[in-house]
C-alpha cells in the first residue's frame, strides 16, 4: 500500500510540476476571490449564502480544468512516449492506471476545496457570517446554506462522471485534444440530446446519462425535471455508467499493445 502511494505521488508530481496546472489554479482562485467583490458592488447586501449560491454559476470551471488534466494523464504519456518507460516497471498496468485515476480525483477535490474555501472566506468577509442561516428561499424547503451544500455535492458527482469520461477517452483514444474536445462537447451537448429523446415523452430517455446528470433537479422536484424519476433511480443509472466507463478504461489500457 505504501508503495502504491508512491505511484500516486509520482502522478501528482506530473500534474503539479506543470505551469498549466498553476494557471488553472490561479484562474480559479481569482474567480473565487473577485466574484464576491463584484456581487457586493452590483447588488445590495445579498448575504454570504446568496453570494455562494450565485458563485455556483462558475462551478463548470473546476469540471473543465479537471477534465483537461484527466484527458492528459494517459494520452500525454503516449504522445510524449514516456508511457514506455513507465510500463516497464514492476507494476501491473492496472495499478499504474489506478494511481493515475486517484491522482486526478485528488486534483479534482483540491479544485473544489479551493473554490469553496476561498469563496466562503471572501463572502464571509464581504457580507458577514449570518448567525442564523437566511430563511427559506422561495418555494424550496431548504435553507440557503443547505441548498448550497447539496448543490455542491451534486456538482461534485457530475464532475466525477465527466472526469471519468475524459479519463476513459484518454485511455481509449490516447489523444489529449480529442479526449478534452469529446468531453467538453458532451458537457454542453448533453441537454440537447435529452431534448431529442425527451425522457418525459419516451421512457428510454430516462436511461440517458444526461437525463440523470445534474442531480440538483431533485432539489426542486422529487420526480426530477422530466417527472417519473427519482434521486435513487438517477444515482443507480449514474453508477452503472460509471462502472462501465471505468471497466472499459482499464480493459483497453491493459490489453493495448504499446507502440508509441
Amino acid at each position: 500500500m505504501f508503495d502504491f502511494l508512491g505511484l500516486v505521488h509520482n502522478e501528482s508530481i506530473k500534474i503539479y510540476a506543470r505551469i498549466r496546472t498553476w494557471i488553472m489554479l490561479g484562474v480559479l482562485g481569482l474567480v473565487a476571490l473577485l466574484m464576491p467583490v463584484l456581487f457586493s458592488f452590483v447588488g445590495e447586501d445579498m448575504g454570504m449564502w446568496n453570494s455562494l449560491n450565485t458563485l455556483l454559476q462558475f462551478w463548470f470551471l473546476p469540471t473543465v480544468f479537471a477534465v483537461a488534466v484527466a484527458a492528459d494523464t494517459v494520452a500525454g504519456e503516449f504522445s510524449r512516449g514516456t508511457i514506455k518507460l513507465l510500463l516497464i516497471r514492476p507494476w501491473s498496468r492496472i495499478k499504474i492506471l489506478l494511481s493515475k485515476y486517484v491522482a486526478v480525483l485528488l486534483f479534482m477535490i483540491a479544485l473544489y476545496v479551493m473554490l469553496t474555501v476561498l469563496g466562503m472566506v471572501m463572502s464571509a468577509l464581504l457580507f458577514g457570517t449570518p448567525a442564523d442561516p437566511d430563511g427559506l428561499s422561495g418555494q424550496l424547503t431548504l435553507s440557503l446554506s443547505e441548498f448550497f451544500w447539496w448543490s455542491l455535492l451534486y456538482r461534485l458527482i457530475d464532475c466525477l462522471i465527466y472526469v471519468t469520461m475524459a479519463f476513459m477517452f484518454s485511455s481509449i483514444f490516447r489523444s489529449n485534444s480529442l479526449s478534452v474536445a469529446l468531453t467538453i462537447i458532451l458537457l454542453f451537448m448533453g441537454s440537447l440530446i435529452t431534448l431529442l429523446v425527451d425522457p418525459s415523452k419516451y421512457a428510454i430517455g430516462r436511461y440517458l446519462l444526461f437525463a440523470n446528470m445534474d442531480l440538483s433537479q431533485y432539489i426542486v422536484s422529487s420526480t426530477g425535471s422530466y417527472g417519473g424519476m427519482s434521486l435513487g433511480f438517477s444515482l443507480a443509472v449514474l453508477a452503472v455508467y460509471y462502472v462501465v466507463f471505468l471497466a472499459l478504461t482499464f480493459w483497453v489500457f491493459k490489453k493495448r499493445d504499446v507502440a508509441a
Partner: protein
Amino acid sequence: MEIISDKMPVPGSKSKITGEPVVRFDNVVKQIGRKTIIEGLTLDVPPGQVFGFLGPNGSGKTTTIRMMTGLMAPSSGDIVIDGRSITQDFEQAISQVGAIVENPEMYSYLSGYRNLKQYARMRSDVTKERIDEVVQFTGLDRRIHDKVSTYSLGMRQRLGVAQAILHRPKLLILDEPTNGLDPQGIRELRDYLRELTRKEGTTVFVSSHLLSEMELMCDTVAIIQAGKLIDVRELHGEADIHATLETIFDVGERIEEALTLLGGGEIRNGQLVVRTNREGIAEINTRFIQAGIPVYGIRPLTRTLEDQFLEMTGGGGIV
C-alpha cells in the same frame, strides 16, 4: 555461408554457455493485423554477455524488444526472463530488466534528477546514494538539476541509460543505444557495457542496424531479417590455431598452374583461395616455392560482419 535454422542448436555458442539463459525466446510469433512481424523466434541469450541483435530497419528488432518488456503481447509463444514468463508473471520478470525502448523519452518539464526519482519511487531497492552514483557514472552531475527540455539528444540518451541501470538489473535492454551519441559518448557507452558485464555480471541485449558498432561491442550477435532469425554467431572468439580458414595465395600469373599443383582450392575473383589451417598454409607455401611458383603474398580471407550481413540479407533487406 552456413545458414542456421532457428530450430537448430547454434554451433559454437552452446559449448561456452554456462548457466541458464537469461532470456529464452520460445517460438515467439507476433502478428499485427494480417502482417506477421516476428515469425517463430526461438533464441537463448546466455548470461554475462553483450548480446547484439542485428537487423536492417523494419526487420522486427523493436517489436521484439517491445515484447521482451511487456509493452506488446506475443501472438503466440513466450519470452522467459530469468526463469519467469513475461506474459504470465510480468511483475517478477520485469523487475530484473532495465531498458531503453527506442528513444529515451523523459518528462521534459521535470529535471533529470526528478525524472530519476520518479523511477526510484517505483521500486523499494533504489537509494538516494544509488541515484547519485548513477548520475556520477553517466557524467550528468553538472546538469542533472536542469530541466530535461534543455538537454541535448546525447544527454537524454545518458539519462536513458541512467534510468535503465538504476536498479542494477540482471538484463539491460538497449534499443539502438548509440543514436545521437557523439564518438566520445559511443566509446564511453561501449566501455561501460563491458564493465557492467564483467563486474556486475549483467547481461546486455543491444539492438542495432549498425554493424561496425556491433562488432566492437558484442560477444555474440543474432541476425534477424524480415522477422526471422537467420544466424547467431560469436565474435571475439580467441584465434584458434587449429581453425581452418580460407586463405588467399597471391601467386601472380601462375594461378592455374598453382591450382593444378595443389589439386584443391578454387579461383575466386581471380585469386587463389584455399581452405586450410595454420600448418597447411606453411606446407602449401613450401610446395609452391619448391615448384618454382613465386608467392607474393598470403593473407586470410576475412570478411567483416558487414560483408557477411549483407550477403545474408541480400544487400538491401528492407521488407
